[in-house]
């Protein structure tokens, strides 16, 4: 296996173009390294992205921008998320355990390789988009169009996620995240995130409710969103919406039955809505 550590994005993209399917990009390495002898046996070269300068978190008037190789710890410690509308991202990253993993795992890697993780759920609720670069240019793609199946994304050979952009939410919006796991360092068995916008009457003109690990990819809980949208955001609406989240076809695997996930899906949606609405009322 060849190991490359380019010092420019252009250099990395040329390498990835030339390597095609025989090359893989890594940053923290926390997914590639433990799986290198099972899932990556045909990989002939790795391209280490840690020298590209994609480790940043910036906040301007319109959006939050997170460089793809920002570690989860750097994301949390950047301070850019503290107290503002994006604190839910920091809260979500903090629940990815253990600490040793957060110190190495990167935002881009988590989004690209982790079908069972937490950041995709929250970033989908916040309507994030990805900047994807290749040797022939770059494109932006809504995160919602990124996940095609279990460990299967819209990323083409030679392409690289370089940045996550999260639009600044309306001032009357609130967001929250909630997860179920079995033990302290487990992957989530099920998680949920929501962003709820309130109008001056306390009604909800729009809401995004996402469930992670309910299906092979994170999904929108459309029925739950519809049950909330247009109605007054009181306790009754929250219960109605969380019950509507039960109509999803929950997946079954060794970690939980579909029935357990259905129950937890209802509870997780209830919890994120309560918190998101409370935050929307308090202006976050």
């Amino acid at each position, binding site marked *: 296996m060849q*190991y490359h550590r380019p010092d420019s994005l252009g250099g990395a993209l040329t390498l990835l173009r030339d390597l095609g399917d025989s090359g893989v990009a*890594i940053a923290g*390495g*926390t997914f590639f390294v433990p799986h290198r002898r099972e899932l990556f046996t045909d990989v002939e070269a790795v391209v280490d992205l840690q020298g590209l300068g994609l480790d940043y978190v910036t906040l301007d008037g319109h959006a939050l921008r997170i460089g793809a190789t920002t570690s989860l*710890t750097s994301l949390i410690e950047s301070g850019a998320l503290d107290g503002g509308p994006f604190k839910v991202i920091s809260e979500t990253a903090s629940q990815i*355990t*253990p600490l040793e993993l957060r*110190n190495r795992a990167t935002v881009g890697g988590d989004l690209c390789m982790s079908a069972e993780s937490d950041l995709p759920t929250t970033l989908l609720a916040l309507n994030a988009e990805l900047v994807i670069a290749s040797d022939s240019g770059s494109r932006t793609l809504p995160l919602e169009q990124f996940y095609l199946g279990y460990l299967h994304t819209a990323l083409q050979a030679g392409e690289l996620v370089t940045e996550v952009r999260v639009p600044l939410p309306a001032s009357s919006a609130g967001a929250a995240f909630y997860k179920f796991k079995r033990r302290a*360092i487990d992957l989530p068995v099920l998680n949920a995130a929501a962003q709820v916008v309130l109008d001056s009457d306390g009604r909800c003109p729009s809401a995004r409710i996402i469930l992670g690990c309910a299906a092979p990819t994170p999904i929108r809980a459309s029925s739950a969103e519809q049950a909330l949208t247009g109605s007054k955001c009181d306790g009754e609406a929250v219960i109605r919406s969380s019950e509507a989240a039960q109509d999803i076809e929950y997946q079954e695997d060794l970690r939980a039955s579909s029935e357990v996930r259905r129950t937890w899906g209802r509870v997780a949606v209830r919890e994120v809505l309560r918190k998101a609405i409370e935050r929307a009322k308090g202006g976050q």
Partner: protein
Amino acid sequence: MRQSVTLVVNGLERTVDVDTTWSLAHVLRNSLGLTGTKIACDVGACGSCTVIVDGRAVNSCLMLAVQAEGQSITTIEGLAVDGRLHPLQQAFIDSHALQCGYCTPGMLMAAKAFLDKNRHPTEEEIKEAIGGHICRCGSYHNIVEAILIAAKEMATA
């Protein structure tokens, strides 16, 4: 494929010829002879192989050795200075915080990285900091106690 990599291990620059697929944990133990770092699960699930890389605790089994080029690594062998035990090591002995000892190097390195940033931790914060570490002997209670004692010692030193 073989490649030369230079690491700064416990303050000393070490250049070794490694296979690019080898983990940092493997190279520390097999190329550098630093067998204090333990490998148990080799997939980032137990914390045994924890070392400090550029100030942060990491699982050395989850990182290729070549990725650590030029980085500063502290292993359990670098914890005692001039033959004097680190307060954490002394506290682990005093509190009987180990039985078989296999998890101990990883526990100590995680605790060191944690206390370097937080000199006045709560019990809850300590539990979170070592949450990725498995002690099959079940000495958790004494481990947490030892870290609390070491924190007090280090705060007053």
